[in-house]
């Protein structure tokens, strides 16, 4: 355990060095958030029907998705993927620790450090925008606490999916196609592109059972107060269950592959 904690610490400190890159990424996210909000504004102002979600909550939802993008499993760990492509992954196999957990610790740092750098400026700016684009604070303290806890749940799901993306590189060296496909599935089904409450009812039902809804949708709906605090336990268990399932799945496909691994290069 101690080894994993120090891996997290070292990676975390290293990733915090890339401040300029994080800020640049933050600006991009901000830009996209603005476009999405303006599109939503157009939709909301052309319909008077009752919507499953208020315009205010929808904006907060979009900002939350943009701010937390770094935490979503939309790509793998570049360094691990390069190790696999060059064949240096064989060194990783020599380390006296569980490979999956080692990569998991790296994924943990990868998903937290840049997100911390990126999300805080986006939150601050989004909270200060004029009312048509403004993000709103949670209605009460309990929503905020529920958000923190479910964000941790989201992080666990995210790390397990990140690890699965890393492992798929072992199966197909380029792996580019599958990964991009996976990342676009993650972005749409987590609610980053369109808030999940706006999806058609049947589709919404299906999506609510998938792990992706645990990434953005659940934490954000606690944040806006749409899910009541007393349902926290149920939703958090749902996240944990998926995290455990994906953890086991990842372990399994990794171990299966390692047995007959062919290392690249000479």
């Amino acid at each position, binding site marked *: 355990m101690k080894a994993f904690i120090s891996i997290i610490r070292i990676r975390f400190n290293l990733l915090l060095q890339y401040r300029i890159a994080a800020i*640049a990424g933050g600006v991009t996210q901000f830009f996209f958030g603005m476009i999405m909000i303006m599109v*939503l504004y*157009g939709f909301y102002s052309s319909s008077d029907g009752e919507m499953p979600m208020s315009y205010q909550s929808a904006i907060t939802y979009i900002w939350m998705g943009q701010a937390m993008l770094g935490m979503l499993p939309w790509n793998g760990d570049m360094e691990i993927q390069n190790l696999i492509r060059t064949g240096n992954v064989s060194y990783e196999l020599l380390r006296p620790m569980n490979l999956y957990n080692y990569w998991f610790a790296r994924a943990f740092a990868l998903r937290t450090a840049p997100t911390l750098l990126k999300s805080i400026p986006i939150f601050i700016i989004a909270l200060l925008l004029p009312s048509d684009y403004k993000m709103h604070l949670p209605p009460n303290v309990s929503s905020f606490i529920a958000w923190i806890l479910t964000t941790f749940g989201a992080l666990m799901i995210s790390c397990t999916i990140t690890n699965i993306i890393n492992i798929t590189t072992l199966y197909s060296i380029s792996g580019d196609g599958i990964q991009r496909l996976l990342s676009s*599935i993650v972005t749409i089904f987590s609610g980053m592109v369109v808030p999940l409450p*706006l999806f058609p009812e049947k589709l919404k039902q299906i999506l609510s059972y998938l792990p992706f809804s645990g990434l953005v949708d659940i934490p954000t709906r606690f944040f806006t107060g749409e899910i009541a605090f007393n349902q926290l336990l149920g939703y958090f268990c749902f996240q944990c269950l998926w995290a455990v399932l994906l953890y086991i799945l990842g372990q399994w496909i990794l171990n299966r592959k390692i047995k007959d691994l062919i290392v690249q290069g000479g």
Partner: protein
Amino acid sequence: MDSIKLYFKYFRFNIESQLQYKTSFIMMSIGHFLITFIEFLGVWVLFERFGNIQGFIFEEAALFYGIVHMAFAITEGWTRGFDTFPKLVRLGDFDRILLRPRTTVLQILGHDIQMMRIGRFMQGLVVLIWAIFKLNIEWTLGKTLLLIGSIIGGNFLFSGLIVLQATLSFWSVQSLEIVNSFTYGGVQAAQYPISIYKPWFRKILIYIIPLATVNYFPAMTILGKSDLLSFSKWIGWFSPLFGILFFIFSLSIWRIGVKHYTSTGS
């Protein structure tokens, strides 16, 4: 004339080399098709929920979507060399290009032509054809030419943006993610009719990054709608030319950049 012949030679070599890995090529193309299809799902979801956006129905929006995505797919395919240009500068490889007795633009364009972008192109085409079948448009020769013209114009506009983005790397060797938001953000913004946006954002899309000229104005003319945001009626008929003008303008900025170039050495 000689340059055009040379470009086609580059073109042939690129295709031949990419077709060496047939399965990989097919998988990547299918991947691109599916990814853009998932993006389109987001648009569908919003229309399913709200019915219309400022009087535009889903089929009409699909026409805008198809034009923009086909245009951008062509751009992604033939300007890939400019897209990855910062790397060329960073590694000092641009020096080699300067030494050869051909223009820099030709060589960089020929450097990398990505055929697999055909996936996005096909998806745009499918959406466009679907929209055309669903909408009752009175087709004339003029409108058909205008449709093709707006795709070509759009391609040149996006290409111009990519060239400008590459030009920036003469001043900063760091690859700047921010400029990406103009191209990708532009695609996002222009896949809806710009009249849905607030006036300040519309002005940006008309005067600063003139995406409206290759999308909104011609598409409105094709649809036979009269809301041209107080521009006169003829603007739709030759506004796609602005895309080409923008590209020529970008090339002249590029030339200034090349004069300013200092090698990174080694």
